[in-house]
């Protein structure tokens, strides 16, 4: 019996070579095919592409099909142009020209040539007739479907394109590479293949990723992974080495989320976000949305929906997703994600950070300037290939843990481009910026837009733009200038504020936790004041959107008016029940220990904005004081400010200093309190 089994198995082995791979694929176009597109009688498989003798002059090897004469619309992008990366020209029509190989594939897949239209069938030249096929269009061409590439190649991964990992782009600081694996380092086991022509350069063609003869799904070279999705990802990552991808939130998402849309599992053999990597967001072919960078959906919608057919089936950033941003951005006040009118044409374009201020893209692309391209989408602030989970905020807090606050980018903001201003004289507009390939400080991301780089030149810090909160947007870089006399320590710690004089920092007793430790030596984040209204209640952190004006976050959310939007906070409110919601109170203790000061000032009805500038980012006067002739929006209603002179003095709990520190004749007191001009006040930038 053993012999019988051996013989039987030998026969089986002998018959193995006949089970050639292509026979079992859709590229077996003969009558024996199990696919829907097949010959009505022809049994030969190879002949649909190859013939051993007297082959076509263009195409290889041993090519037997006419080459399409199509003028394809080739892939292009702002990114390629800005990187000065050679964009694909027309696909070649002769051997040894880039793109010829891809044109061979397109001789079926562009839909212009009948599938059965081969040159020669055995000893017969077909002379324009074709092998009779079933499953094709009436003209014999490929029917509509995912395999029909068509003649517009703009929504497909580029082919006939050079592969050059050495191209780089210098930012003002930092260098952007193409994030491509060196040719010599491409894993040979992947079978991913570059094509070299007589120009000595390497090119990507259809056959770089696909092997038309393999049984692997989608004819991918890579078939070693556990699912089609993982095979596609390995195909991508064999060449694309995105900086910071390994270990990022999208490569290794926390808690291993899965799509609930059953179509994802059906299509890719896995529904785990972590398995789907690149193809959560990108699709290499037939992107029906025709978006930039082969993203699945128009900009933010890609982040909301991922690979699912709708947001509801996704485990992404849409409503119901694992980190729901969409809900937050649907609130009254927000960064206008999803609001931009012409997103489909790509309001945000990769590297647009290079074209802020007065600079325009010589390639004709859209830059950052609000005058021509006001927008804010996910990619403006996040790098989805590098973002990692987590922010600087401590558990159970709105802020960093005591004594740890910095302004360094948090994990979710890893690898985002930014700008760093060159700081001009106090209370003037910074107009010189260094572009950053990768921001190290959070504010460098915000200032891409909230400065001259986005809003352009303005006569004073107030720009020509009105925010969703109904106030004039200001140039925050102008306000945060380290040469200004005062400001929140977002850019630089107070001890290094070049514009200020002693005492540079507040006394710890004037502050609340977690700010009481070494206040002069700490910095803070834009996102310590601005965020979603319920960051402590489950909202995604960060200034995406809020129902509170100016995206003010924290236990107290109102400034300079109370929740009713009209009543200004006043001295009466400090320490009383009436101060409910005073935003400043999140960090500052206005009541303690200035008991003497508070007693003097209480019940006088003075409004906060009679002394302090309305926009508390910074001021040319110490301690965020403003003078009477300051313009709106710093001067509430244009006339709230009362002082015309102020100089700060050292904090002393027992000594309030001289009332002549402030000169405020506008109070109309006629000799009261601050009616003596003793000089030496902080200079007024407004003449």
């Amino acid at each position, binding site marked *: *019996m053993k*012999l*019988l089994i051996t*013989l*039987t198995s030998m*026969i089986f082995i*002998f018959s193995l*070579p*006949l089970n*050639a*791979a*292509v*026979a079992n694929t859709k590229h077996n176009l*003969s009558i*024996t095919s199990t696919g829907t597109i097949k010959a009505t009688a022809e*049994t*030969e*498989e*190879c*002949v649909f592409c*190859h013939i*051993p*003798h*007297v*082959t*076509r*002059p263009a195409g*290889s*090897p*041993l090519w037997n099909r006419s080459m399409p004469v199509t003028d394809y619309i080739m892939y292009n992008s702002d990114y390629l142009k800005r990187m000065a990366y050679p964009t694909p020209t027309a696909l070649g029509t002769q051997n040894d020209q880039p793109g010829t190989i891809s044109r061979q594939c397109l001789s079926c897949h562009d839909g212009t040539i009948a599938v059965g239209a081969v040159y020669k069938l*055995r*000893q*017969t030249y077909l002379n324009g007739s074709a092998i009779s096929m079933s499953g094709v269009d009436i003209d014999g061409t490929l029917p509509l479907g995912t395999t029909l590439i068509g003649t517009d190649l703009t929504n497909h991964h580029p082919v006939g394109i050079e592969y050059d990992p050495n191209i780089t782009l210098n930012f003002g600081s930092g260098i952007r590479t193409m994030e491509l694996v060196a040719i010599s380092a491409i894993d040979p086991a992947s079978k991913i293949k570059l094509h*070299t022509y007589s120009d000595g350069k390497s090119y990507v063609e259809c056959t770089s990723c696909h092997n038309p*003869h393999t049984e692997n799904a989608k004819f991918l070279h890579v078939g070693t992974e556990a699912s089609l999705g993982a095979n596609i990802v390995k195909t991508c990552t064999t060449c694309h080495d995105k900086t910071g991808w390994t270990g990022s939130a999208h490569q290794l998402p926390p808690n291993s989320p899965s799509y609930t849309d059953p179509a994802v599992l059906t299509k890719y053999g896995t529904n785990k976000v972590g398995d789907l990597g690149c193809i959560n967001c990108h699709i290499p072919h037939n992107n029906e949305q025709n978006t930039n960078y082969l993203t699945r959906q128009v900009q933010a919608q890609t982040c909301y929906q991922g690979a699912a057919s709708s947001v509801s089936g996704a485990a992404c950033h849409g409503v119901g997703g694992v980190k729901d941003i969409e809900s937050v951005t649907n609130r009254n006040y927000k960064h206008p994600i999803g609001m931009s009118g012409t997103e489909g044409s790509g309001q945000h374009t990769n590297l647009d950070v290079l074209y802020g201020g007065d600079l325009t893209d010589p390639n004709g692309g859209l830059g950052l300037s609000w005058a021509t391209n006001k927008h804010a989408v996910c990619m403006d602030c996040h790098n989805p290939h590098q973002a990692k989970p987590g922010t600087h905020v401590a558990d159970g807090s709105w802020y960093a843990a005591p004594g740890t606050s910095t302004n360094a980018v948090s994990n979710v903001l890893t690898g985002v481009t930014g700008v760093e201003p060159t700081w001009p004289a106090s209370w003037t507009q910074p107009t010189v910026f260094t572009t950053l390939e990768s921001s190290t400080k959070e504010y460098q991301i915000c200032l891409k837009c909230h400065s001259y780089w986005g809003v352009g030149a303005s006569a004073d810090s107030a720009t020509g733009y009105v925010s969703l909160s109904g106030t004039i947007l200001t140039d925050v870089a102008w306000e945060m200038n380290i040469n200004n006399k005062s400001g929140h320590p977002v850019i630089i710690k107070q001890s290094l504020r070049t514009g200020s004089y002693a005492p540079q920092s507040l006394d710890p007793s004037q502050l609340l936790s977690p700010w009481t430790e070494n206040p002069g030596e700490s910095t803070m984040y834009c996102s310590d004041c601005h965020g979603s209204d319920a960051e402590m209640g489950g909202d995604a952190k960060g200034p995406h959107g809020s129902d509170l004006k100016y995206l003010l976050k924290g236990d107290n959310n109102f400034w300079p008016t109370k929740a009713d939007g009209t009543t200004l906070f006043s001295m009466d409110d400090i320490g009383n029940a009436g101060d409910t919601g005073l935003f400043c109170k999140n960090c500052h203790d206005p009541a303690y220990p200035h008991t003497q000061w508070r007693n003097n000032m209480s019940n006088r009805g003075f409004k906060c904005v009679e002394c302090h500038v309305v926009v508390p980012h910074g001021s040319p006067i110490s301690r965020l004081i403003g003078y009477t002739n300051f313009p709106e929006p710093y001067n509430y209603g244009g006339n709230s400010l009362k002082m015309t002179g102020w100089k700060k003095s050292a904090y002393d709990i027992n000594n309030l200093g001289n009332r002549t520190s402030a000169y405020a004749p506008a109070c109309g007191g006629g000799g009261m309190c601050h009616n003596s001009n003793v000089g030496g006040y902080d200079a007024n930038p407004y003449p």
Partner: protein
Amino acid sequence: MVGEGENMFKKKLSVVAALLVLGSASAYAGVITGSPHDLSATTTGVAVNGELCVFCHTPHAGNSAFTGAPLWNKASPTTDFTMYGATSAATNGQTIAQADTGVSDPSNSSLACLSCHDGVSSIDSIVNAPGSGLNSVTTVTSITTIGVNANANLTADLTNTHPISVTYIPGNASLKPTNTVLTGWQGAGTILDLLRGSGQDQVECGSCHDPHNGLADQATRSTEVNFLRHTNAGSALCLGCHDK
């Protein structure tokens, strides 16, 4: 019971053996008589005594300088060929993987075929004509060269024909191991049997073709190609070597 079992085993074994024999019996065997290589039947010129073999072979006084085929009855070919993957004549060929094949001319066994199929050399020019008359290069028929547009005219440009005089390297072009068993092939039981040259590792015309294995009714057939070692129905010939 034991004996019965043995008998049954023997019966089954004989069935298997019969199947194997049946397999080899279906070898793709053909003839030369009446095939396109039967030049006697296609000529109306001077008498050749109905001889078939004479257009290639002669029992005596052959061209012993040419070793491409036995008892060669034609002059040594002189055509300059452009090899597969080569940019011009007299330069080395290249594989699809752009590897230099190391040769700029077909080897002799293929040159034998090309001494007609280059479309240039005279078919009817032989060394030793039928009958007496040794060592006289003679025109024996009115056939000169293969028609310019004939399928069989490969021309001297071999860039558009399957590579020949190229080393068979398993793995390249999805080629199978040389010990792969071939079933039903004319003159070959394994791929190794198809290979030529001193190292028995070269692909030549004869790897796919057997010039004596023709079909007498070729003119009436549209689904077969002449002189193949195996039918190419289902592309079986191609897939014999290429594991695509």
